[in-house]
């Protein structure tokens, strides 16, 4: 019997369940390794060589090198693990989260200061909110 997944119809959202976790095991464990300062230094010195020490897929490695967090999540990454890459880069959680929306840092920050993203139109796939697939990317960063 397959997993019951009542959460697949939420737009712009990937729930980190056992299936995603299996897919992303080595990607996420690579991220964990960046909690040690010495590993952060080694990664920064030669990212590709460091990634090659891990049994990750080529797609996962390329997504990390590109800092494409949406792609990393699609390939099994979890944001709390991926955040270690952002920390290594000196990025805040807000910069990381914003990078997944196609907005510039300023656009995303302003959205948050103005009360955040509305849930209206963003509860179920097929509505017309700004997180829906047909409205991506959302900002100037994604239109470059």
């Amino acid at each position, binding site marked *: 019997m397959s997993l019951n997944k*009542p*959460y697949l119809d*939420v*737009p*712009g*959202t*990937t*729930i*980190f*369940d*056992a299936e995603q*976790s299996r897919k992303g*095991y080595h990607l*996420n*464990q690579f*991220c*964990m390794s*960046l*909690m*040690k*300062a010495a590993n*952060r230094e080694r990664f920064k010195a030669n990212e590709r060589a460091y990634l090659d020490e891990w049994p990750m897929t080529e797609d996962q490695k390329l997504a990390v090198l590109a800092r494409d*967090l*949406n792609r990393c*999540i699609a390939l099994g990454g*979890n*944001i*709390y*693990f991926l*955040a*270690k890459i*952002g*920390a*290594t880069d000196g990025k*805040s*959680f*807000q910069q*990381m*989260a*914003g990078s*997944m*929306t*196609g907005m510039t840092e300023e656009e*995303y920050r302003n*959205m*948050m*200061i103005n*009360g*955040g*993203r*509305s*849930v209206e139109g*963003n*509860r*179920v796939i097929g509505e017309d909110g700004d*997180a*829906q*697939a047909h409205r*991506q990317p*959302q900002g100037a960063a994604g239109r470059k």
Partner: protein
Amino acid sequence: MNMARITASVYTSHVPAIGAAIDLGKTAEPYWVPLFKGYEPSKQWMKDNTPDVIFLVYNDHATAFSLEMIPTFAIGTAAEFTPADEGYGPRPVPKVIGHPELASHIAQSVIQDDFDLTIVNRMDVDHGLTVPLSLLCGQPQAWPCPVIPFAVNVVQYPVPSGRRCFMLGQAIRRAIESYDAPLKVQIWGTGGMSHQLQGPRAGLINADWDNRFLDRLIAEPEALSKVPHIEYVREAGSEGIELVMWLIARGAMSDVAGSGKPPKVAHRFFHVPASNTAVGHLILENA
């Protein structure tokens, strides 16, 4: 009476950026002023009501627990816990002193009360635990009392249901109140409120839902505990699921055990935003 008792419960978000703002001396910046103002009464309350032990419910954010082991409920029974390096270097905060005797008693009581806890004798603690302490205690040389860390898995599904958390809180109250020493214990539930940190829906905030959650947590926690996960995800964002942890603390209050007296709301605060997140905070005292 010479037994331990729960005096109050505290609920707060544990956003890492709040910790960074405190550590980097940014609390007077206009962005942060309204948030820290909301915790001023709490700091005073904490000084006036310092407990002997804090039982602190939080979640580990891929810090102590990687994907190698994912305990649903983990109780820290060590003598001390070190603030973790989450990738930015460890927060400059005091180490956390545990209470091994009470923690071990709670583990024994709760496990024999049918909740399968993982017992942890070595664990670094991340912002989920240290940010609430900073918000309520400021920047002391040492935290004002021992803390028992209680980590809940809300990172990888399946996460525990609100109902399971609420019942666990009741078992924790029974455990604490059967401990043979006159300790005043606070139970804290942390995380939330609405936030989503991933994907094109990142930045979701639902202030109406959050405030209804606060209302119901105070007035009808049992009914609130029946809200299914999917409602948290849909309405409060994928990381809003952290709010199930608040139900553990609420379940430990005496009205749930039939005292007949609703808790006193000593403080309530709500603010948007802190980084990506809606911040909610409550202090409930047992009547």
